[in-house]
């Protein structure tokens, strides 16, 4: 028995041993070679470049709606809105608006009387406000033709700020507060429904009082 085992191992020539060894060594190497792509891609991995990511924190758009001017009826209002979003919650916004005030009830009843000139009926305001997105959420709408349901991102926000109103021959400091509902049709296009209260002191009708002016408007804005 012992001689048989000796015969097997000692009987191998040097050349046969080398062949076996080479085969054993070669086996894993050749397997690894098969996994390599035939052509190595000549691309260097690139790190992320922050400056190539488009940022969309500014919002700019037009607004239209109605404003109820105390003692002077309600009038069509148009203007512009700009906003800068500081965080997901906080933003700064600036608005300008133009309207033409109607008549006081005194002017209507008395007939041919004008309390303020036509020129002074031009109602112009600007304001800057701080805003806070209090309720982000989603609105679901049925498509008109397809029957699919679409989900839109929405924000309910509160604003408060100050500015000036140029009306009835005077430019007055004006405080404002309000709320808005923003519907994002795409990431960059949004529709706002806005309620805002404008307050300033006025003495056109005799005694000085705080005039309350309510604005309801819609704004169409783009993010950039």
């Amino acid at each position, binding site marked *: 028995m012992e001689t048989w085992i000796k015969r097997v191992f000692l009987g191998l020539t040097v050349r046969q041993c080398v062949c076996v060894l080479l085969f054993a060594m070669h086996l894993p190497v050749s397997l690894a070679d098969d996994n390599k792509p035939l052509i190595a891609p000549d691309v260097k*991995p*690139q*790190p*992320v*470049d*922050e*400056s*190539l*990511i*488009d*940022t*969309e*924190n*500014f919002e700019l758009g037009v607004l239209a709606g109605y404003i109820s001017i105390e003692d002077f009826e309600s009038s069509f209002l148009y203007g512009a809105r*700009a906003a*800068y*979003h*500081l*965080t*997901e*919650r*906080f933003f*700064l916004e*600036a608005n*300008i608006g133009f309207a033409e005030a109607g008549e006081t009830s005194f002017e209507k009843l008395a007939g041919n009387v004008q309390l303020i000139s036509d020129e002074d009926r031009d109602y112009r305001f*600007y304001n*800057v406000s*701080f805003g806070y*997105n209090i*309720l*982000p*959420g*989603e609105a679901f709408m049925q498509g008109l033709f397809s029957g699919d349901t679409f*989900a839109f*991102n929405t*924000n309910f926000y509160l604003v408060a700020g*100050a*500015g*000036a109103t*140029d009306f009835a*021959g*005077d*430019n*007055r*400091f004006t405080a404002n507060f309000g709320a808005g509902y923003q519907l*994002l049709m795409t*990431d960059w296009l949004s529709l706002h429904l806005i309620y805002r209260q404008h307050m300033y*002191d006025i003495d056109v009708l005799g005694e000085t009082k705080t005039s309350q002016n309510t604005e309801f408007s819609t704004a169409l804005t783009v*993010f*950039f």
Partner: protein
Amino acid sequence: MTRSLPLFGLFAGLLLCSRLAFADWWNFWSDQMVEQKVQVVEPFIEMRTGPAAGFPVVHVSEKGEWLTLLKRKTDWIKIMDAEDREGWVAVEDLLLTHDATGKQVAITEPRFDDFRTRRWEAGLQMGEFDSTAVNSAYVAYWMTANLSAEASLSQVLGNSSEIQMASLSLLHQPFPSWRYSPFFSIGGGQIDIKPKATLISVENSSNSMAHAGIGMRCYVSDRFFVRLEVKEYKIFTNEERNEEATEWKLGLSVFF
């Protein structure tokens, strides 16, 4: 024209502030579509429908997945995964991913430290000028960590007059690394006083003025801070004596 001056200034200020946004736009168009990709290395990453924590999570990407960065709104980035699903991921989550080089992604969140590298500052302020309400907007350029130059426009709306001011100032803050950083300012400019229509026989006056003040910047978070200041004005009139006024203002500012 002078009446709409503060308005114009405000929008000019906003436009100037958007320098960064325009720079991004330019890059976006000129350097079209070099895909910015990151790989998830944490067990998972959450995608939301919108750029705020209040929006619902609609998808979760697993470890090893590659995400393409599309756009950014405040501290959220819109991403697309390999199967074209889109969603918004918080920047702080993305900071835990790796880019193609296998290193941590280099996206910056604006922080207090950025005060040292940023150059522009802009803000809106409200307060009282000589016991009358004042609205004001300004833009500042930081020449060194201590010294900045700024231009501001103010509108004072009183019962007896409307005042418009445009001024240039130099600000010095001795301790730029403090979170509550005091500063001193000195400057001058033009002041236009328009008496209200009901007061007859008083004419509009336009005078130069100088002012000195102290104030404080209080860093809040991200890229914004609260700024409070008190200024003493000297108005150089044509009359026998000059006028003086005190002003305080409080406002919110942003750095770029």
